[in-house]
């Protein structure tokens, strides 16, 4: 018999990166955090330390991409958690836009207006060339959630689009609602229990 987990899961996004600022899609490509981004990571770390109030996370997960590794290290230091024990999980990686990874969003819209329109027509199922649809990402995030350990509290450091899918599945939303969620970098979500979330401002 397993007990229903009590205690929260904290879901954080990495701080602002060079390409976030330049409005370029990152996907599975990567750039480091800006000065503002490291300040956001530190502020989120401090807010998480207040939330945990002396507790230590049972498990700390992060996406293995560079920007989440960098953010996770700052958060771990801020809450006194050993960064060597962070568990990197590929299912937490950002949505990849395939050959569009690294492109400026406005440029993409201008150069590939037809494909872009097809994306807007069905964002959930649309697969960018060489990339993933949100629906495919929901499969791997769903897999992560299905096998989520029962210990709490948990900390997860991942990505903007990824975290929308994560929160959507957690709350049992419809696909259209997933896509309308926000992607803050100045705070994070406390998910507890299944179906509910609260925003924690950093």
């Amino acid at each position, binding site marked *: 018999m397993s007990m229903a987990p009590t205690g929260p899961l904290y879901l954080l996004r990495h701080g602002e990166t*060079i390409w976030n600022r*330049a409005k370029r899609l990152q996907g599975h490509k990567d*750039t*480091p*955090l*800006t*000065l*503002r981004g*490291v300040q956001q990571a*530190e502020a989120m*770390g401090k807010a998480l330390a207040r939330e945990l109030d002396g507790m230590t996370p049972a498990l700390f997960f992060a996406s293995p991409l*560079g920007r989440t*590794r*960098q953010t*996770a*290290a*700052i958060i771990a*230091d*801020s809450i006194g958690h050993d*960064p*060597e024990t962070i568990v990197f999980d590929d299912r937490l990686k950002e949505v990849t836009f395939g050959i569009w990874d690294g492109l400026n969003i406005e440029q993409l819209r201008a150069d590939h207006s037809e494909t872009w329109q097809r994306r807007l027509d069905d964002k959930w199922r649309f697969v960018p060339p060489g990339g993933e649809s949100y629906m495919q990402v929901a499969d791997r995030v769903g897999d992560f959630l299905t096998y989520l350990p029962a210990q709490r509290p948990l900390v997860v450091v991942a990505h903007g689009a990824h975290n929308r899918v994560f929160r959507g599945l957690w709350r049992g939303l419809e696909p259209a609602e997933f896509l309308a969620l926000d992607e803050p970098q100045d705070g994070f979500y406390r998910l507890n229990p299944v179906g509910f979330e609260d925003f924690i401002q950093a």
Partner: protein
Amino acid sequence: MIYLIRHGETTWNRIGRLQGQADSPLTLHGTRQAEAIGRALQPLVDGNYFQFWASPLARTRQTAAIICDVIEHDYEAITFDDRLMEITLGARDGYAGWRELARDFPDEAEIRRKDPWNFRHPKGESSQMVQDRVRPLFEHWKNLGGTHVVVSHGVAIKILRGLQLNLNEQETFALDRPQEAFHRLCDNRVEIIEVKLP
């Protein structure tokens, strides 16, 4: 004028784990070191034209991005050059520490002790090999003149300072690798600029 800056403290630096060309991210402390270096560098390069060079490893990219924001330089204008990467320990990159390495591979440790400059870990580089790859870049900066800001690594920077001062192998090997200071190569001198953390 050449400014040589080592990346800030990483999670592996803190626990003594060997990085080489493997990588770990900056700690919170390392992030603050990078920002402090940027603040100290800012008045030195303010209003001057300079070129920004960096090693493409993650810890130097992270350090360079923070410095760029502080000195208001475009990160996208950095030239990432593989020759500025850290010495690789090959098969031993990421090893737990020097003590563990000596314990597990005593024969290699003995060879290294006798001739540290030319020693290579399996599939790794010697200090001589690193000097051979950074020398052309060093000479390129000297020929170009002007100001160059360089973000690189402990061993690579020691070797660049050794070239500047015409040091021999032992003297170069004995140099330090500070993270709360950086070096300025000017004429035939090397100056150290200490930074204060807030």
